[in-house]
């Protein structure tokens, strides 16, 4: 017992000699501050749990435009009402642009989606991006207003990589090309 006493006394005294009290306080303070800052780092946000309706491991995005609300990296984003495919927003592209190395198909299927910000139906062109293997992230299959294969211009099960150098489907965009009118309006 006496030996144990001596041993622990010696260790504590050595510790006290080698470390200043203020140094310990500074280290603890640093850890507390650092710990609080850590979740703010982008790397922590990206690997954190999905927020809202986003996909696991996908950082939420914003258009920055209050008239274009929602998260373009989420399947619930209003422009995706008729989409069937991988969202280019999750694949290095955007709602209007293709990932590097892919080519946007000029031939598309086109529908309308209701913008919740102004309650107006917009004409959306679902241009596919082509030329690389399928992206595989953020599969979104909403199909609102989609029609069967006998209305091919309104069917999204077709590979719309037509008129591009490669027919390999990569991901889908949702480009606004106009404003629709309600039936009997105008």
């Amino acid at each position: 017992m006496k030996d144990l006493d001596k041993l622990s006394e010696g260790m504590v005294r050595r510790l006290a000699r080698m470390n200043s009290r203020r140094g310990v306080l500074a280290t603890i303070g640093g850890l507390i501050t650092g710990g609080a800052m850590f979740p703010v780092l982008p790397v922590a946000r990206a690997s954190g749990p999905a927020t809202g309706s986003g996909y696991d491991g996908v950082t939420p995005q914003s258009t920055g435009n209050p008239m274009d609300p929602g998260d373009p990296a989420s399947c619930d984003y209003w422009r995706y009402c008729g989409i069937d495919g991988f969202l280019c927003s999750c694949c290095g592209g955007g709602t209007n642009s293709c990932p590097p190395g892919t080519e946007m198909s000029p031939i598309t299927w086109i529908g309308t989606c209701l913008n919740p910000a102004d309650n107006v139906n917009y004409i959306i062109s679902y241009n596919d991006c082509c030329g690389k293997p399928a992206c595989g992230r953020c599969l979104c299959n909403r199909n609102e207003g989609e029609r069967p294969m006998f209305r091919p211009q309104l069917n999204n099960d077709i590979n719309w990589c037509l008129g591009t150098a490669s027919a390999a489907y990569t991901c889908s965009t949702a480009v606004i090309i106009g404003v629709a009118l309600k039936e009997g309006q105008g």
Partner: protein
Amino acid sequence: MKTLAALLLMTSAASAGMPGVPNEARAKINWQLGCQGCHLADATGSANGAPSMAGDVARFLSVEGGREYLTRVPGVTNAAVSSDQLAELLNWTLATFDSDHLPADFTPFTGEEMAAGRAHPLVGEAPTVRAALRKKFPAEKSAAGGGK
């Protein structure tokens, strides 16, 4: 919504009306929703896909059987609009993409005419009929449009 309506009124007033197109905004929306996906926004079409119409679609009106062909071609007969709106859409397409070849005495298509064409749709034979009609087009100095 009011501003949109006002804007539409202004635009339709400014273009002074296309023959047989009561509502240009509606015709354009129908074009975007039903045609543009394959024919492209400027109607130039694509290789091995929807044929080009830009700069030569109205030439069909100058050959025998051409007017009837325009009412029976698959893209027209399958369009998901009423025959009246289909007539408006076809008249708008002719005036928008090939006004140069639109005859001065052009009689706009009517809903009845479109309904009659839809009752006898061309299917697989459409490309053959189109090629035969194109051969009959009167010669032009500059070959406008893609000769398919």
